[in-house]
């Protein structure tokens, strides 16, 4: 789960990480009000879940409240990579001496937590990683042991010779690690972490991604969920135990298992079709999931045919069949539906389907050929 900069800053503050003050605003008036309150230069920053907002014009300085009103008005409603800006953060301006990068994430190849810092902060860190990897210092942290003092020192001595800044950095890095662990992040990042002209460390940006699997442990974090428009269907799906991603094609896919779902998309494409979505109904499906799946698919007017591809393991084919029957009863499925069933309880499922005048393929290839043909307006490709 992604959260906004202002929310991440709130969390950092709770962990004692110094951030520059600010207030979130949904209207130019609110932005102007905060600017006049602080009475100095502010930065107005679009709050969206995508990167590159600076280049897109979503971050602007304002030297007074009129300017704050003006730039907030420009930024609010702006489209950044498909996301509409609904909120801005109006943050106090800071006199910057140095910009640093600090981030914590997982290193999946070595199965440790990795803490990264770089003196080259304030820029796209993935680009730094790609072009100047030597500029990034990495420390690997054993998750059973946690971050040790010496590791904070290793990071701090990489960046700061001044004893006070060094100490402040050690302290900050430990807090960032603590925030990462205690809120089950997959990423916690400060870019840039600045040294002000007064020599103080300050997080003037903040990025946190939470591990979706761990959110049940942190009900208070759920409240921070503010999905972008385009993510709404995905989240609706997730809340119903489905994994859904909208694509551009015309063949709606309903598959069990992420690997098979991806393979299904690949084969549809290989046979000349275009998948309209990734949709994994997950393991241990109950019939209701299929109903939900159809609700999602039917929203997409581009879809010309639906392909249900199930290989039952923990998923039982009869559950899927029952789900399909329910869906067909609850809504008008005006699209052709091609079914392929195999695996656990396959026979039961075939019986249920045939009682309801559906038929199902058992070989994937036959089903794909048919659904691609149907989507193109052809009929009876397999002569059944």
């Amino acid at each position, binding site marked *: 789960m992604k959260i906004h900069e202002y929310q991440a800053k709130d969390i950092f503050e709770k962990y004692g990480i110094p951030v520059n003050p600010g207030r979130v605003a949904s209207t130019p008036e609110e932005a102007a009000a905060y600017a006049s309150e602080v009475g100095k230069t502010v930065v107005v920053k679009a709050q969206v879940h995508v990167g590159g907002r600076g280049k897109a014009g979503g971050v602007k300085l304002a030297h007074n409240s009129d300017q704050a009103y003006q730039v907030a008005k420009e930024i609010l409603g702006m489209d950044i990579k498909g996301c509409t800006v609904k909120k801005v953060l109006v943050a106090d301006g800071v006199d910057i001496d140095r910009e640093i990068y600090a981030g914590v994430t997982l290193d999946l190849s070595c199965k440790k937590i990795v803490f990264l810092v770089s003196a080259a902060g304030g820029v796209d860190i993935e680009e730094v990683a790609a072009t100047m990897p030597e500029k990034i210092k990495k420390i690997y942290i054993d*998750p059973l042991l946690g971050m040790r003092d010496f590791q904070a020192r290793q990071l701090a001595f990489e960046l700061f010779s001044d004893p006070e800044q060094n100490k402040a950095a050690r302290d900050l890095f430990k807090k960032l690690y603590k925030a990462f662990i205690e809120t089950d992040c997959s990423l916690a990042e400060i870019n840039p972490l600045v040294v002000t002209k007064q020599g103080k460390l300050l997080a003037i940006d903040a990025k946190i991604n939470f591990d979706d699997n761990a959110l049940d442990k942190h009900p208070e974090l759920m409240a921070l969920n503010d999905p972008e428009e385009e993510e709404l269907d995905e989240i609706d799906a997730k809340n119903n135990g489905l994994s859904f991603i909208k694509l551009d094609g015309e063949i709606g896919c309903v598959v069990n298992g992420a690997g098979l779902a991806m393979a299904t998309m690949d084969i549809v494409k290989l046979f000349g079709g275009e998948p309209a979505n990734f949709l994994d109904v997950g393991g241990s499906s109950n019939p209701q999931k299929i109903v939900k799946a159809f609700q999602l698919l039917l929203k997409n007017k581009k879809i010309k045919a639906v392909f249900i591809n199930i290989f039952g393991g923990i998923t039982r084919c009869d559950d899927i069949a029952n789900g399909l029957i329910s869906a067909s009863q609850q809504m008008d499925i005006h699209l052709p539906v091609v079914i392929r069933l195999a695996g656990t309880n396959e026979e039961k499922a075939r019986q249920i389907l045939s009682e309801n005048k559906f038929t199902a393929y058992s070989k994937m290839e036959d089903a794909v050929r048919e659904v691609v043909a149907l989507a193109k307006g052809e009929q009876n490709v397999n002569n059944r």
Partner: protein
Amino acid sequence: MSIIVDQNTKVLVQGITGRDGSFHAKAMRDYGTQVVGGVTPGKGGQDVDGIPVFNTVSEAVKATDANASVIYVPAMLAVDAIYEAADAGLGLIVCISEGIPVLDMLRAYNYLQNKNIILIGGNCPGVISPGKCKIGIMPGSIHRQGNVGLISRSGTLTYEVVSSITQAGLGQSTVVGIGGDPVKGINYIEVLHLFQNDPDTHQIVLLGEIGGTDEEAAAEYIKKYVSKPVFSFIAGKTAPQGKRMGHAGAIISGGKGTAADKVRALEQAGVTVLDRPDIIGEVIAKSLRV
């Protein structure tokens, strides 16, 4: 011979009284697996279709001499179940549960290092040596004893390929579903090592998907250490960048871990990479007829 499991594997089912646990406990037993007991705290003394239930794993191990465990408990309890199985001395732990918090699993992974325990999963279909032992959720009926070893990050995709192998008149030595989570127990390389040394495995199928660099690492290992023919399919060619495709592992970011990368790495290692999974059985059969 077979790897990881065989006729002597005695399995405990953690979470045996749940919907999935009880269903698959029976399915495994019906397949011929020695399902010697189950564990559900507070239900000790009961039984599931004749399989005795215990309160704790250590109690169950003492009573049954189990040497393996399969976990069907809810995601938030799964890591504790892994620790409990490890602590009770079980040498094989198969974790089916899906949705385990990553940092919790990371701790468990590090804890299990150097403990001589094989953990498969979480979020995996399990492991089967057809005709000998099935631990997990895969439909037993599609399998057939044979000489193709199969490793996969995906469950249902595995069934597809198993089915194609069986339909091609071949069979499987062992099928290992290592699971789709970013942090999991056994990985490609360990299984490749076991297959390479297993006299009953003649060909190896490696099923991969976008995200991460495990397939690339496997390719390097194959190049160096695997002399048996390897066949592969990588799912996710049509997936868009930066999107998480169900499996937490299946996310492409920073231009790394694309299907093209993986296919290239595997082909350079001499692996036959196919563009659809359902023909793998045929292709292997054809390679044998040549």
